[in-house]
């Protein structure tokens, strides 16, 4: 048996060789990264501009359709109606006894 193979220098070099072996996987990953990573365009990104334009159009149309003065008049009318004391109506209630 050859015991000369085991000496501090050989152990030291073996330590760094082992680290290098493991480290080379990381180095390989970094080297091949540009090859494996083309520009990624997700479907969401591809149609997002168009969707944002549509959204802006809708918001604009909604804003134009909304008349604050008419809304206020309508709101006040609703308040008056809601403040009235309820009275019995002519229409029968569901489940109520009928003549």
């Amino acid at each position, binding site marked *: 048996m050859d015991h000369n193979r085991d*000496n501090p220098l050989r*152990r030291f070099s*073996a*330590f760094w060789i*082992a680290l290098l072996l*493991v480290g080379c*996987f990381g180095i390989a990953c970094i080297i091949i990264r540009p090859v*494996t990573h083309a520009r990624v365009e997700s479907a969401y990104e591809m149609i997002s501009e168009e969707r944002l334009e549509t959204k802006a159009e809708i918001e604009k149309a909604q804003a134009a359709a909304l008349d604050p003065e008419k809304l206020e008049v309508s709101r006040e009318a609703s308040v008056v109606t809601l403040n009235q004391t309820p009275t019995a109506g002519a229409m029968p209630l569901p489940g109520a006894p009928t003549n």
Partner: protein
Amino acid sequence: MPETTPTADANDVALRSAIDRSLRHPVMFFFTSGAVWLAVAAVLGLITSAKKHMPEFLEGVSFLDAGKIDAAHINALIYGWGFQAAFGVIIWLMARLSRKECSSPGLILTAGHVWNGAVMIGVIAILMGRGTGVPWMEFPTFVWPVLLLSYIVITIWSLIQFQVRDAGHVYVSQWYLLAAMLWFPWIYFTANVFVFSFEGNPLMAAGIASWFKGTLFLLFFLPVAIASAYFLAPKITGRPVYSYNIALFGFWSLAVIGPWAGMQKLTGAPIPQFLPYAGAAAMVLILIPAFAVSWNILKTVAGHGETVSASPSLRFTAAGIIGFLVFAALSAVTHLFGFKLIQFSYTGYGFDVLGLYGVFSLCAFGAIYFIVPRVTRREWLSRRFITWHFYLSLYGTISVTLCAIVGGLSQGEGIEAWNQSFLAGAGRAQMYGWGVTFSWGFLLLSNLFFGLHLLLMWARLGRRSSHPTLLTGHHTDSPHGPEGEVDNYGSATA
């Protein structure tokens, strides 16, 4: 022939004893903490399986949601039990075969604690809903660098031991150990960096994640199991390995075929067509190393049926090697003839358990039953515990595998029947799910026997005896002599 002189024998025994002593604490730490994680994984597996066929079970407990506990179960099994058992086997076997004492048990032990801490944080994070959702890499992303660093600190000393070994023969077990030690950082680093660190196409990330899942077993757990088998079979039977050429062929066929496995899970996904086909082909071709390895090991122990039956190590190892053959045969058949039925069904889980438990764990148990008496200088306390552990493990593994694979095939047929609802397909697997749950109960019970026995051994409460613990006969009439004697260097060798 100086090796055969009494002085050389005494020196050899003293060296082996010194190696065992130097590794006592790291090896026992890995085995016992691994056994605890195995029990945890079994409990989680039981709940996971129960939730598959009985969704209302523990439904009010948010951290036990099906998605969380499934991931916690498999990660506890892999990183808690599997890796730690593998660490114990690797560092002991490489030291023994290189004939070098361990010079850094303290560092290994420290790294082992860090590994355990990281696994615990990972499992808790998964249960809290912080998992990544990537199969077999569910731990939060900050965990993997810690695990990789701990792995390097644990195994680098074995690489050094191999490099400074006395010139001469390199054992078959050493090929596999060396390969496993280098293959794991390759696949783990690559998979984690490309999936979590580099921003890229999500399809590519899915492909790499599948590849990692496929190769982790074939390129890490399997080589460690085979290394253990190639050590124990000749050692215990006292015969050389049946064929060195077949061993060489088996090793290189695994090295060539193994790295291609994994992407078959993505059949039909918009990735290059050849990748899933290459993955499926690898899962068929795995039969080649399986035949080579199992033929070689089984021929080595052939004619020693009584030894295989009596030795706990050999009994577990033989079961694990047969498990490998079954794994490869089932894999070949399902990937050749029924792939559509297994792609989205329960069957994959059956293969996971068959590989991790039916092959790796059984071989690891065999190694543990051999190694622990040597490092503790005590013999196993109870033959009954070992026998129960063996039969319950075997029964549990076969049941989980059969129920999951057969149930999964039936489920796959249901999914393929387009005139039925998806739930009808899932319903076909329900009764098999009950079987899996009960089987995890058996596995849990078996591992309670094992864990308790191991803890007693670590506490050095084992038998003070020079006899190996055999599963037949009584120790009082053993040819090794009376009880209560411990030789000057270590425990018995058979």
